[in-house]
């Protein structure tokens, strides 16, 4: 029975993807994947965490149908690996889920073939597949159905018409090879496997730091002193930097694009280095027994101060980037800066949490990778091109129209509507019309597998 499900999935796979672009097919593939995973792993799908990850996978599948953007496709792949990896081992960290998911997807068949051959070697009584029965359950119903179709065809002209429209000419060797690939893929994920040394190590590693009994108070005292001096000096340095930067921002009246751009980019570079170094230094000092040293209060306070000052530095860059966006509009780079700043803020917060709750490095990896995954899923559900275009056209002080045209087709209808209400230069009007016509043509030529949400909107914008 389970083989028939896999076979059905494989046929569906080649029907969805054979000589097709990405569109509705990817969303349907995600649904088929969830169905197959849940049929073969019923128990796992009763847990809340699996349901949550399935939901994130569905969100990315819906995002592909709505936006068809590269980000939604990447997020969908990540969500797929996460879900498959999670089904293989529910208690492992998210990055181990990715590893297990990828391994299952790539080579599950080969590992299972090896295990199967080993178990056959041991038992030496192979379970024979009843091929005659298999032929019977497929062949007899198929033959009977064909006979009845031929009979009904002659009895009803509408039915006859419907049957004659069925076209199997698409089946060829390439289509069959794709079906085999589909079967291989669904067979792989039907029973997810684990990368064993890594998964076991992850399961045996807790988030809490353990006290090591081999240490000397004298060494800890010296390390505490060094840490305190270093972090206090860094605190003073960052305070001076922040005061001069805020003074410059509040006193300069005219904002020149080049200056602001320079400031934001330099600020970001400085911030990247400063936050990475900050986290490395904190992790170095709080890597072991210094966490349990009774006189580490001052060092901890200095560390929290430094984290707070780094947070202020992040906020400072956010203000600069927002000003830049207000004057010159959104671009992917500027949004990327905001995303990076958000990740930096989360990183600083989790580092403070690590120091406060005496956690280890793995805790940071686990929490931060989970946060990054959540952010990826959330960001794929936003129509960024539409948002950028809408903001730049209607809210920004100035905009780069050619940049908006270079974005994906997700802003085409918005640009067209704008061009109908506003006077554009001849060149821009031509570019908007060209983009619109090309997109409409593409939508009209889409097969049902390639369909996207805009296919249903097309009449509205004609």
């Amino acid at each position, binding site marked *: 029975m389970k083989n028939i499900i896999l076979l059905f999935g494989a046929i569906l796979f080649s029907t969805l993807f054979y000589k097709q672009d990405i569109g509705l097919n990817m969303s349907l593939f995600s649904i088929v994947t969830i169905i197959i995973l849940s049929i073969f792993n019923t128990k796992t799908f009763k847990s809340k965490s699996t349901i949550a990850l399935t939901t994130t996978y569905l969100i990315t599948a819906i995002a592909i149908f709505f936006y068809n953007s590269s980000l939604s496709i990447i997020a969908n792949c990540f969500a797929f690996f996460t879900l498959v990896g999670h089904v293989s081992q529910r208690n492992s960290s998210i990055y181990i889920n990715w590893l297990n998911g990828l391994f299952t997807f*790539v080579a599950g068949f080969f590992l299972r073939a090896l295990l199967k051959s080993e178990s056959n070697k041991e038992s030496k009584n192979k379970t024979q597949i009843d091929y005659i029965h298999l032929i019977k359950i497929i062949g007899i119903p198929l033959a009977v159905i064909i006979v009845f179709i031929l009979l009904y065809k002659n009895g009803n002209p509408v039915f006859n018409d419907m049957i004659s429209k069925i076209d199997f000419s698409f089946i060829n060797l390439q289509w069959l090879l794709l079906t085999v690939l589909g079967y291989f893929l669904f067979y792989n994920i039907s029973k997810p496997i684990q990368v064993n040394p890594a998964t076991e190590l992850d399961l045996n590693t807790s988030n809490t730091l353990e006290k090591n009994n081999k240490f000397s108070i004298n060494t800890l005292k010296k390390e505490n002193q060094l840490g305190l001096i270093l972090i206090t000096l860094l605190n003073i340095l960052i305070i001076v930097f922040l005061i001069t930067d805020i003074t410059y921002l509040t006193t300069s009246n005219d904002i020149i694009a080049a200056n602001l751009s320079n400031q934001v980019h330099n600020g970001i570079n400085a911030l990247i280095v400063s936050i990475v170094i900050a986290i490395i230094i904190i992790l170095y000092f709080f890597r072991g027994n210094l966490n349990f040293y009774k006189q580490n209060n001052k060092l901890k306070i200095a560390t929290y101060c430094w984290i707070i000052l780094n947070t202020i530095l992040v906020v400072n860059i956010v203000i600069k980037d927002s000003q830049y966006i207000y004057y010159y509009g959104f671009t992917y780079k500027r949004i990327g800066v905001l995303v990076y700043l958000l990740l930096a803020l989360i990183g600083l917060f989790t580092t403070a949490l690590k120091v406060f709750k005496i956690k280890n490095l793995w805790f940071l990896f686990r929490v931060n990778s989970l946060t990054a995954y959540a952010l990826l899923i959330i960001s794929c559900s936003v129509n960024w091109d539409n948002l950028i275009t809408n903001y730049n056209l209607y809210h920004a002080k100035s905009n780069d129209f050619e940049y908006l045209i270079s974005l994906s087709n997700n802003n085409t209808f918005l640009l067209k509507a704008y061009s109908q209400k506003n006077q554009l230069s001849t060149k821009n009007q031509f570019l908007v019309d060209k983009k619109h016509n090309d997109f409409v043509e593409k939508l009209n030529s889409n097969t049902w597998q390639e369909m996207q949400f805009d296919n249903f909107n097309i009449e509205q914008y004609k």
Partner: protein
Amino acid sequence: MRYSKSILKSIFLSGIIFWLVIFSEDFNADMLFWVFLSIIPISLCCSFTIFTTIAPWFILNSGMKPREVYVKYFAYYAILCFALCFYGVWKSNFSIYAISFFASAFITTMQTWNWLVIDNPKDSKS
């Protein structure tokens, strides 16, 4: 002995996959000459790949049972091999020749790992 046996099997397997994918796109009888001629480069490629990328894992870990070597390293090898093959296909803009080459390379290397463990007398005793 087990290496030469595995290499022979891998030459056969990769040849079949390579030409099957190409024939799915275009087939004419004149190509049969090239099928026979291709055995030489396919043999060289298979032998070279197996001796440089798979055999060293077993030779360098000769103290371990082949199955243990498989469990420890196969996953990373498979992921890396898939990544490289997918990159090759993607860089070639999904050309049928690149797909046939990389698909046969990927499937053959994966199966060779299995053969090297299954055909091993050390493991069958355990």
